């Protein structure tokens, strides 16, 4: 009997020790209540804070914490602290709590948290996700909630703004934007006797072939893959469109003459050995290839400046607008991120105030310092901004958004696979795009 008691006591002691350790560790690591728990302390409808017992009836101080999730890079996140400081200074009583996520896993974390009722108040989302989340009913329609919406909307570039439109309402505001332009390797060009980057699509094709030597492994043009983002600039610059303006059908649009012409251009370059075969996977990346002389031109975004500065500091990067139609109309594709407010937030006013601030000139300028292209059209050509912004912001005036639709991901896949089929030769561009049109129409039902 004594032995059993001893053992039981020992086991119990072990278990207790473990539990106590856990408890102690947990309390030193901080309060177990989540941040949203702190948020629930006050509601925005009350004008008196729940825990303050002031006798004087002065301006009531509203204690609110707004959570903001984002996927900014580390330098951008560091600058974000300055933006938050500025906001908090101007709005005493509101604290902004940012959480940084890695891009690849962000969507999973976001959706799980929303499903669990523990989502953030605001977040910076990839523009492609906004219609998706809006359709689910997760987002607040900002045009209905934000008093200053119309004013803000007219001050940003139209392309980025359009990415927030779904079902007649705007579910976010463009926080930062980017687009793709042409990067050309000056050394490779001059070695072939060309001093200027191609201005028209025709010139682009001939230049690409002039600079290609597939035996040596050099190509006039390199693309990162067949996902729509890659051919999109040439596609839009050629006058192509995926669907009609009302987003009702793709027939006659994605397989229309201009769209087909764009893809015929690219497929032709591939077949003639002017476009690197790495487009179908497993080759030198576009960034390294461009800097090391494998690809004379690539089409990419403003983040290349940072990448080259760190990985290839000796390489001089040159930007040029996307080659245009013969009549001079150029275009490109819009990328970037939108700031959204979630429908189940209980800090609505504070969240809206924070959103508004992110669209202010002050915030946009601060973030521009770390290479984030602003969405305020008024800042185009501003001398305080980094020099290389100029070509991007000019391009943004004509750049187009991809289809703002919850099923965009599948549409992207349809075009992606069509492009692969063209390159592999199993279908002509027209045939491949006809099939894509059918697939996209099915998604628009």
């Amino acid at each position, binding site marked *: 009997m004594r032995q059993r008691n001893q053992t039981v006591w020992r086991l119990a002691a072990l278990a207790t020790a473990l539990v106590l350790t856990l408890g102690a560790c947990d309390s030193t690591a901080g309060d177990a209540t989540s941040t949203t728990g702190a948020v629930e302390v006050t509601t925005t409808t009350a004008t008196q804070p729940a825990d303050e017992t002031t006798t004087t009836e002065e301006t009531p101080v509203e204690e609110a914490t707004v959570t903001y999730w984002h996927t900014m890079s580390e330098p951008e996140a560091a600058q974000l602290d300055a933006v938050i400081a500025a906001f908090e200074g101007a709005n005493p009583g509101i604290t902004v709590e940012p959480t940084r996520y890695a891009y690849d896993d962000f969507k999973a974390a976001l959706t799980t948290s929303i499903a669990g009722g523990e989502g953030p108040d605001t977040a910076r989302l990839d523009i492609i996700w906004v219609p998706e989340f809006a359709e689910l009913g997760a987002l607040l329609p900002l045009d209905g909630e934000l008093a200053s919406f119309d004013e803000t909307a007219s001050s940003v570039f139209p392309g980025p703004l359009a990415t927030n439109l779904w079902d007649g309402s705007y579910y976010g505001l463009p926080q930062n934007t980017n687009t793709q332009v042409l990067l050309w390797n000056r050394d490779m060009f001059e070695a072939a006797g060309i001093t200027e980057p191609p201005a028209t699509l025709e010139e682009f094709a001939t230049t690409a072939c002039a600079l290609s030597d597939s035996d040596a492994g050099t190509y006039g043009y390199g693309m990162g893959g067949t996902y729509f983002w890659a051919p999109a600039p040439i596609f839009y610059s050629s006058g192509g469109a995926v669907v009609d303006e009302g987003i009702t059908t793709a027939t006659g649009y994605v397989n229309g003459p201009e769209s087909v012409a764009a893809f015929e251009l690219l497929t032709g370059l591939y077949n003639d050995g002017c476009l690197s075969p790495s487009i179908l996977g497993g080759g030198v990346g576009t960034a390294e290839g461009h800097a090391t002389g494998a690809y004379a031109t690539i089409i990419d975004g403003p983040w290349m400046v940072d990448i080259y500065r760190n990985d290839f500091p000796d390489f001089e990067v040159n930007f040029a607008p996307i080659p245009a139609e013969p009549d001079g109309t150029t275009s490109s594709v819009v990328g970037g991120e939108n700031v959204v407010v979630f429908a189940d937030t209980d800090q609505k006013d504070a969240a809206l105030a924070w959103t508004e601030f992110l669209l202010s000139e002050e915030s946009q300028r601060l973030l521009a310092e770390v290479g984030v292209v602003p969405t305020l059209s008024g800042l185009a050509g501003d001398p305080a901004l980094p020099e290389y912004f100029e070509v991007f912001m000019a391009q943004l005036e004509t750049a187009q958004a991809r289809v703002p639709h919850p099923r965009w*991901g599948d549409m992207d896949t349809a075009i992606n696979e069509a492009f692969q089929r063209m390159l592999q030769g199993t279908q002509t561009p027209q045939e491949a795009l006809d099939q894509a049109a059918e697939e996209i129409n099915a998604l628009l039902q």
Partner: protein
Amino acid sequence: MTQTPADPVLHSGRDRQALTTSNRTESLGRPEPPGPPRGRRRAGVAWLFLLPGVALFAVFVLGPMIYSFRISLYDWNLVTPDRSEWLGFANYARALGDPTFQRAVVNTIAYTAVTVPAQMILGTALAVLLNKAIRGRAVYRVLYYLPVVTPWVIVALLFKFLFVGQGGFVNHILRNVLGVVDHDILWLADPLLIFAPIMALGIWKGLGWTAVIVLAGLQIIPAELEDAAKVDGAGPWQRFRFVTLPLLRPTLVFLFVVLVVGGLNAYVSNLLITDGGQPFGQTHFVLTLMYQETFTRLDFGYGAAISYLLTALVFMISVVQLRLLRRRVDL
């Protein structure tokens, strides 16, 4: 103390001996200790041991499993679940009829069929070698364990990098060092060849894991048995086959079941190397397809259905394995 077990076939030879001993003891007429009948007290004590584990399991696994199953029967609305549309088993039917899903099942089974035997054979051989009393044994053990310890995400991207077509490391070796091929193989662009890095990665990572478990299993085998066999003139292979292997059997059965479960559930390596089933969605594993459906396309009901179909497959295969291999083996 030992009761007559419900199924005597289940116990190993050593326990058979023990049984006879206990029978002998019982027949000596030892008085039963006072208290409630042995059967009920036994069960009560048993549940005391079982309770913490079972409780945790019920709360964090069983409950969620049922919830997941429920999700799979709806077109699940993430934000307002009440608005979810009832689909019955439509999600399941959809999956079974989907060529992408079917291809994913084939891919997953092929992957398991290749990597599991490779890990078991190589892992056991490795464990035998690591068990020998040679100098520096601990160092070798650590070295072979390193792949196990490195996170999947890191090594998947690393292997992807090594298998890059133009100018990749593997191509460099094959082409320039070994001279086996004369042009760069585009591993990552081909829907079949892309499985080479994925399988290599699976085997590479599982080798040390398997070896550790077999190593632990080898410790139970008394050295005297092997020495006796050696004295009897048995060669190393014979000793392995007739002494080591039979006594390793429970460990190997355990490994076989667990490795198959792991193989069928593989997904991180595939997700990162194929970028989500590229090209044309032909290179999916069942779980990468599920991940894509759930977290990229936000079709939670469908994703849940896919994972339940996988679970059913895994369960069926495991039951078959255990049934076939369980005779005279403890589990």
